[in-house]
């Protein structure tokens, strides 16, 4: 059963197409790695799949339902995004951020053990309580990863998730991804980082709006 499906997706900027006729089917419990040259359109494709950008053509379907027909509230619970912006309130601490975003998506459920999540992504407990404004790039990225984890979504769309992470951070990221996949999540990640390639169940290469199986390097 296909979880996320892109049918004939096209996207244009200034009257010029970046993506044309993109066809993509993502299954549950798989991790797909998307590669492509700089400017190939990976980030744009992820945004379209997440429903935060409207494609000029074609449609994206989640479990067979076109995205525009799904309530945004429901969508947010299903699809998690990690991109270049950290998606955190800089004035709040890591703990407060994770708790807030969890509560927005799952109000009234049991309180989440946010501290455990943060420790999971390798954030020292000393850093849990201070505003993330002062965080280093890698620390921000880790916190953002914890936010995604807290969302409990089952479709993960990650744009260069290993940016700024040190070697230990990359290993943690790989762990997390494998764990989530084992729980049935559909993961699509765009990256240039060769360290993440071995995780892939499937590798796709984006070239002029055309998706093809990547040659194994």
């Amino acid at each position, binding site marked *: 059963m296909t979880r996320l499906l892109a049918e004939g997706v096209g996207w244009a900027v200034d009257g010029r197409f970046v993506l044309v006729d993109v066809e993509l089917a993502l299954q549950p419990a798989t991790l797909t790695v998307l590669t492509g040259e700089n400017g190939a359109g990976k980030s744009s494709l992820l945004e379209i799949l997440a*429903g*935060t950008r*409207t494609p000029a053509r074609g449609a994206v379907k989640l479990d067979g339902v076109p995205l*525009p027909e799904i*309530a*945004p*509230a429901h*969508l*947010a*619970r299903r699809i998690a*995004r990690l*991109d*270049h*912006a*950290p*998606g*955190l*309130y*800089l*004035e*709040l601490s890591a703990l*407060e951020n994770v708790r*807030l*975003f969890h*509560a*927005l*998506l*799952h*109000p*009234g459920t049991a309180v989440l053990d946010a501290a455990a999540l943060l420790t999971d992504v390798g954030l020292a407990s000393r850093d849990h309580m201070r*505003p*993330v404004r002062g965080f280093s790039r890698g620390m921000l990225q880790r916190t953002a990863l914890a936010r995604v984890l807290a969302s409990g979504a089952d479709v993960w769309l990650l744009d260069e998730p290993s940016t700024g992470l040190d070697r230990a951070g990359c290993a943690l990221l790989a762990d997390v991804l494998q764990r989530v996949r084992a729980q049935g999540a559909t993961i699509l990640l765009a990256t240039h980082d060769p360290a993440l390639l071995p995780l892939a169940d499937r590798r796709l290469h984006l070239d002029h709006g055309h998706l093809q199986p990547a040659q194994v390097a």
Partner: protein
Amino acid sequence: MLLRLTWLLLQKDLRVAARSREVFGFMLLFALLCVVVFAFGFLREGEAAAAQVPGVLWVTLLFSGTVGLLRLFAAEEEGGTLVLAERTLAGATPLLLSKALMQLLFSGVTTLLLLPVVLVFFDASLAQPVLVLAALALGLVGQAMLGALVAALLVHVRLREVLLPLVLYPLLAPLVIAGVRITVLTQAGAPAEALEGWLALMLGFDALVLVTAPWLHARVVEL
């Protein structure tokens, strides 16, 4: 659910505001500054200062409110959390409501502190304080809701510092006109009945805005 999520977001805004502590103080200072500037600019010798109170009061609230509105979504932009906050389990409405409440809180406190100052500076007194306060409350509610809507719509538009007042002031015209008229009329000792029409106008405006704003916001934001 809606209320709970609104409360969550409002709490967050309050916390952010408390951390970057000075906001409240500055907004008030700015309002005071407006009063002083207007006094300089529009008072002439040999004229009763009290007559200027309605204008000064309402225009100051309009201007200082705008300053608050320009900062309303600052935290969302900086961290790139706007899309996340728009997609709560109850849709985008909690975000709009929390922002409107935040703005109302700010402008309400500013007004309460500003009012006595203006009265003392301009040597005036309120003939019918309850009516004026009611008008102020109606005005601030309308401004907060409409302002939050416009600010939310313009978040991603460049030049929004200029566009926000440009769009907002004409839209708020009925409230400002009515507010100024009410204040003038009470000062002139008009009977309460003379004010009813104006208050009804403000009430109608607020009702319109409170109902349509969340709907329009959702239509635009939730793709």
